[in-house]
């Protein structure tokens, strides 16, 4: 009986020390997954929407998107999604990610909260940009630009609006 009480107390104290707030757990779990994913690929994408209790992490490898829905206490892996890895124009990353505070680029204006995308590129500092997703999915962009790729990837991951169809938008 005494042993049982000791075990219960030990488990209780361990739980107290090991637990974290929902947002902190989400952040830690996301960071760990990104670190692990970077061993598989050069570029990892993190998409997040303020007030959601999950993050979306993905990368391209061998013509598939490897996608993960990260929640505070578990990670759901998407089934592999067949998709092309659109090669970006040279200037595209700089245009949408540089000069965070002062940039005035359609659909990528800097705001607090809302949706944002963070890119982890091997051997470089991560970069972040806010996204006005309503604007993103209602605008036709230059092929191989960053927003064009983002539309494609989010469409493939099922995070675009129900009435958005990437192929239809760019074939018409």
């Amino acid at each position, binding site marked *: 009986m005494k042993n049982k009480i000791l075990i219960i107390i030990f488990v209780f104290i361990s739980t107290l020390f090991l637990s974290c*707030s929902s947002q902190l757990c989400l952040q830690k779990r996301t960071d760990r997954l990104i670190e692990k994913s970077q061993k598989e690929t050069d570029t990892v994408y993190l998409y*997040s929407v*303020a*007030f959601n209790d999950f993050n979306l992490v993905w990368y391209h490898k061998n013509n598939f998107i490897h996608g993960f829905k990260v929640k505070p206490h578990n990670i759901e892996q998407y089934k592999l999604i067949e998709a092309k890895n659109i090669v970006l124009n040279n200037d595209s990353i700089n245009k949408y990610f540089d000069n965070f505070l002062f940039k005035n680029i359609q659909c990528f204006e800097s705001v*607090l909260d*809302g949706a944002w995308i*963070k890119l982890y590129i091997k051997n470089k500092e991560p970069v972040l940009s806010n996204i006005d997703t309503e604007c993103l999915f209602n605008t036709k962009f230059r092929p191989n630009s960053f927003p064009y790729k983002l539309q494609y990837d989010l469409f493939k991951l099922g995070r675009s609006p129900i009435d958005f169809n990437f192929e239809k938008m760019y074939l018409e």
Partner: protein
Amino acid sequence: MQTQTLPDGSTEQRWSVKPFRIGGKNNQFGSSVSDIEFFWHIHPNGSTPSGGDRWWVGELRKYGFTGNSILIDVNNGRVTFFNEKSSLINIKYDDFKRMGNQEQLK
């Protein structure tokens, strides 16, 4: 606020605010970024600073910001001070107001 319906039938809602936007003009800092003593915004639902919120602080730092970043959680009457890395301290909104009054007395 924006709402969109996703292909799986679920809905996604997004709230955002453009800081330092006054009279339709962006980046109305008053003077330089290094002169800003604090900036604040409100979350309606009791959440902690988002990754994007913390990123903002980091970007402001690049322009000389050394002040406080404050998040007011209206739902629970709490105030969180945060920086580019994490939340620093979380206090009651009533205490926060009292702190403001003390500052005025000086």
